[in-house]
């Protein structure tokens, strides 16, 4: 029965997945095991996206099903899900740019992959990134941007991190509509991710398999 939820959610069968989750709750099953199955399903979704079987709408849809399951389960939770966190990531859309679709997908995928993500939102000034890095001690910073004006904003953000003396404490990952290897060099970032899964893969490789709580 447990496999059912994993399969139905991974296969994006919304009605079925919600029905199973509800039935399991009604049968007084531990809500944490339901969430754990949902998490397993999302890992399958991530793998299918990585392999080219799933696309962004599939990610969005799976996220929407997951949101409903989580909302259903929440009132019954007595303790939080003890997820081993891979590490912290500070992430936001850089100054001047208000686009957030891509950024939100990356935040979602990093979260699913086990990262603790500090999402600063859109149009984030360089100094705000610096403050958040200091506050959280996050070893990874993600800069997102859709418009071409983001090239300079990213560059300025990397500079600000450098000026604050934090450059060798963090790895900087950039991404977004127009971003490529050239822009990665231009901004002084450490890498660029061509999509959300690439961002996850790079972030994981930077954590070197180590777990930071």
């Amino acid at each position, binding site marked *: 029965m447990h496999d059912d939820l994993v399969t139905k959610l991974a296969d994006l069968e919304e009605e079925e997945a919600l029905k199973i989750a509800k039935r399991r709750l009604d049968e007084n099953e531990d809500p944490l095991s339901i969430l754990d199955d949902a998490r397993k399903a999302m890992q399958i979704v991530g793998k299918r996206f990585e392999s080219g079987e799933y*696309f*962004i709408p599939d990610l969005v849809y799976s996220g929407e099903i997951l949101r409903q399951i989580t909302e259903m389960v929440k009132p019954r939770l007595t303790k939080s899900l003890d997820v081993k966190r891979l590490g912290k990531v500070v992430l936001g859309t850089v100054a001047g740019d*208000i686009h957030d679709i891509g950024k939100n997908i990356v935040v979602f995928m990093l979260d699913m992959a086990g990262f603790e993500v500090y999402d600063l939102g859109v149009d984030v000034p360089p100094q705000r990134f610096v403050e958040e890095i200091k506050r959280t001690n996050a070893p990874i910073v993600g800069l997102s941007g859709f*418009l071409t*004006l983001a*090239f300079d904003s990213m560059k300025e953000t990397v500079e600000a991190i450098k000026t604050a003396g934090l450059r060798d404490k963090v790895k900087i990952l950039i991404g977004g509509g127009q971003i490529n290897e*050239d822009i990665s060099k231009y901004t002084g970032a450490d890498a660029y991710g061509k999509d959300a899964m690439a961002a996850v893969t790079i972030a994981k490789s930077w954590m070197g398999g180590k777990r930071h709580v």
Partner: protein
Amino acid sequence: MYEYDAKQAEVKRSELFDSWLFPHGIDFVDSQAEENYRARVQRIIDAINLKEPDRVPVTPTFSLFPILDNGITAEEAMYDYDKTNAAWRKTLKEFEPDAHTGSGVTMSGPLLDALDYRQLKWPGHGVSPNHIYQFVEREYVKTEEFYDHFIEDPSDFMLRVYLPRVCPGLSPFEKLRPVRESICYYMDLFKNMVVWGLPEFQEALEYIKRAGNEALKWATKVKEFSLWSQSEGFPLMRASAHAAAPYDVIGDFFRGTQGVMLDMYRHPDKLLKAQEKLVPILVKMGVDGAKASGHPVVSLELHKGAAHFMSDEQFKEFYWPGLRDVMIGLINEGIVPMPLFEGDYTPRLEVIRDIPPRSAIYWFETIDRKRAKTLLGDVACFKGNVPITLLNTGTPKDIENDVKELIDTVGEGGGLIVDCGIWFDEARHENVKAMVEFTKSYGVYRR
């Protein structure tokens, strides 16, 4: 589905090509300007016809580039139309492109202020003075508020649901009776008049008046520049009209990117039905605009159909049929649709080649050039696709290498227009110069 009418399309297209070549109401400053104008338009027409012109046309699509390159902020430009036009005049004179899109892209600050328009942020209103206005992505209309209403009566939906949400001064319109209910007896019409006497409706009328005044001032200046540019020998690349992919219209303006994606799973039939309703509306918008401008090219900016944004199956079911219908509808009226394929369209090439030959300009941002030439070489004119990243951060040498590769790969036999892969703002002056000059020298077909 629209059927392609080759005979009608050719007759009408040739009429529109003529009115582009011989524009009504343009007094050329001298015979050289007139000669330049005609040579430039002919060059583009040859490219559309997949014939070799005298050389590859180059039409850099300036967005804020003329403004920023002339040291003006985006904010100043949006509020001072004369400054905007002066910057554009300088840029056109200096770069001498084969065509341009006009100064209207800069937009009007006073108009947006008067409307307090909710789907954009602009300099001084959520965006810094140096940055371009930006779209505010949101689910503006929920599923249950959108599909049934829109499918039943698009105009009523626009008037009483959409406009009040994006133009706050029109919020009283939510309380209007549907206009179609002003029938049966005189009394119904008279009763429906009552609301217009209420203070909030009178304020709404004042709001429309203020916005109308600003729109007229702005459009007058945009037109002034457009006439000047043509008289100086610089043709317009497109009519003052838009069409779009129906899926994008639903996603961009009503349901949001995430909303329309979810609708593919939850309400597929309604999503397709709403697109069906949109097709004739979009075709008519393009046709009316093209006829008014006497210009055959109508642009369609595509946002949500690129690789990753949906699967191939979803593209074939939810995106392409609506877009193709709109394009066929336009082509049948003699119009040359110019879709800008934003994002990577390489995986879609096999699908998008299903369009009548020599009927469209395909403007690409990211594409495998070689595959595009193989699959589209005998179908559609290729426009683009010098990377914006290179224009913004590369060197003139980088640009020359890229344009050379582009012309070598796509230019053979004609059917190529060199441009950036997208509208551009902050590009380096010398790089834009290199793109134009190198195309003009290297892209010569007949010596």
